[in-house]
């Protein structure tokens, strides 16, 4: 099976180019296995990967035009020749490795931790099963960046629009019964950029390898904001 892989070494190459490789497809093979096979042919190929089972979120790649995790993408599902590019819109460090600094910076903006104003109690802050249910589909995010780097609004304003991943995380803490900073969080998200650059394009929902729905989370933030405003 043929893989066309994006190659770019900024120290040596004038411009990025696609390079063709042949891999021997075996049953049950994932794209990550194919890339490891390519790396045995050409050890200069750079790509990130770690756990190999869709948990660490390291190997987000643009495969045949869609963002996916290489380790849980079966090779036989892909149309040959498979075009493999780095996640779109991010600066390329080398080959398939991108610089995700901006992505992590936007995550930090939403203060992704519980904020309490009351003095900490002696025992843990309890949550009912119903309150815990509110966090379903939010805590599962592995921060692979497949969603944010598929979002046109994030491409145009990566420094100002927080992107679907950070906004999903923002809702994860707004929806948490133990968090006490709802007002501050909402105030911080107002303005035309951080939240409201989302135009419900929903590329994020298509891209998420964990089946999460950032668009719905963003809608809930807007609804809560409106409820608090009027």
């Amino acid at each position, binding site marked *: 099976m043929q893989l066309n892989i994006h190659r770019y070494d900024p120290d040596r190459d004038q411009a990025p180019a696609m390079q063709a490789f042949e891999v021997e497809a075996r049953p049950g093979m994932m794209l990550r296995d194919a890339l490891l096979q390519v790396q045995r042919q050409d050890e200069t190929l750079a790509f990130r990967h770690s756990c190999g089972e869709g948990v660490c979120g390291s190997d987000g790649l643009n495969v045949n035009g869609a963002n996916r995790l290489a380790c849980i993408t079966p090779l036989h599902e892909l149309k040959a020749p498979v075009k493999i590019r780095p996640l779109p819109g991010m600066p390329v460090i080398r080959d398939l490795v991108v610089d995700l600094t901006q992505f992590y910076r936007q995550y930090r903006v939403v203060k992704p931790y519980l904020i309490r104003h009351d003095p900490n109690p002696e025992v843990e802050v309890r949550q009912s099963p119903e309150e815990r249910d509110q966090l379903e589909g939010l805590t599962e995010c592995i921060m692979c960046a497949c969603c944010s780097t598929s979002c046109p609004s994030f491409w145009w304003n990566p420094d100002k629009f927080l992107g679907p991943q950070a906004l999903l995380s923002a809702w994860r803490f707004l929806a948490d019964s133990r968090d006490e900073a709802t007002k501050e969080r909402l105030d911080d998200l107002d303005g*035309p*950029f951080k939240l409201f650059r989302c135009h419900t394009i929903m590329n994020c929902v298509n891209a998420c390898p964990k089946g999460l729905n950032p668009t719905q989370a963003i809608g809930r933030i*807007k609804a809560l904001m409106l409820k608090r405003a009027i």
Partner: protein
Amino acid sequence: MSTRRATGLRAWVLQRVTAVYLGLLTPVLLWRLVIAPPADHAEWRAWAAQPLVSVALLLFFAALFLHAWVGVRDIVIDYIKPFAPRLAVLTLTGFGLLACGFWVLRILFLAAVRAGA
């Protein structure tokens, strides 16, 4: 943060609320002006001069121009980065939409006056 900034929530709500009104009234206007149009200018004038119709029309155009303003503002914020063209496009759009608004006012006012309302 005390710097002034453009609105997020207000613009978003405005866009949605105006969209609902535009969505409701557009079929009515299409029916009245395209499918069952007035026979002549005098009949149109008499129709537009009815108090309910003229208020509905004024609201329609106010909603349309507000909706257009938020939409153009969104496009400008998304795609036009340098300050000078950004300000220029927003100013031209603002003036253009205001001018259209006053023009609508003038048309509806004259229709009402000439219809003898």
